[in-house]
């Protein structure tokens, strides 16, 4: 197997683990952790394609990954702020009990 393919397989594995975590865990923080893992797997794909792609000196994949890291940081801050706010309001962080749009 070529090195690029092995990196892609590792990224697919981490993406699937993150997806499983986001879909099966009850706690809202664990759902966010799953999403972070999926974002990281996508970053690994971008870097791997940048490294083995035809024009690494153009830095496209690298820039994608760096901007994606910044967006993921913003997403984590807002997401965890929302979880804390919902916890204060509903006294739970279980996503199965958050079934009302109205407070």
């Amino acid at each position, binding site marked *: 197997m070529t090195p690029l393919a092995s990196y892609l397989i590792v990224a697919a594995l981490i993406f699937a683990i993150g*997806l499983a975590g986001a879909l099966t865990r009850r*706690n809202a923080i664990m759902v966010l952790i799953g999403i972070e893992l999926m974002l990281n797997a996508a970053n690994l794909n971008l870097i791997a394609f940048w*490294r083995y792609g035809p024009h690494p*000196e153009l830095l496209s994949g690298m820039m994608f990954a760096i901007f994606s890291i910044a967006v993921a940081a913003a997403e984590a801050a807002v997401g965890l702020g*929302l979880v804390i706010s919902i916890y204060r309001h509903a006294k739970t962080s279980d996503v199965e009990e958050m079934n009302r749009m109205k407070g």
Partner: protein
Amino acid sequence: MGLVFYVISFFAVGGALAAVLLKNLVHAALALTIAFFGLALLFLRLDAQFAGFSQILVYVGAVAILVVFAILLTKGSEVPKQGVFSKSWFTGLAIAAGVFAVLAWAVLRAAPSLPNETATPAVNVNDIGNALMGRYVLPLEIIAVLLTVALLGAVIVAMHEKERAGQS
């Protein structure tokens, strides 16, 4: 692919698995840190030094700490009685397995046509800085605005309800 790749991938995938499976959320956050660290090492192995160190700074340094803060503020470290997995866990697991099967099938089918070992790209931090200030200056500015807005929004969202009720 050398032994180093397999060891690092083992840590990244094992950390991710442990983060998803562990019942205690604080332990899950620690396992998540291991997964982030493994991914950063994979970035470094792919000659992306800047992205690798950004990964360590942002994820291991900031996101993991934020997650731990959120867990402790929401009493998430207590294991709930009804279990940590939702009632529809089997559907979620099946969807994830299906996604992995499709991705792995696509990668393995395309593997013979993927580019093989290429020369190490001659890119240093100087080039990245020039690209960020030249070709990618608009995305950089937008990211700066996005980060400011997101952090202000996070503070406002997580602010105490009482203070706002008192003002109005």
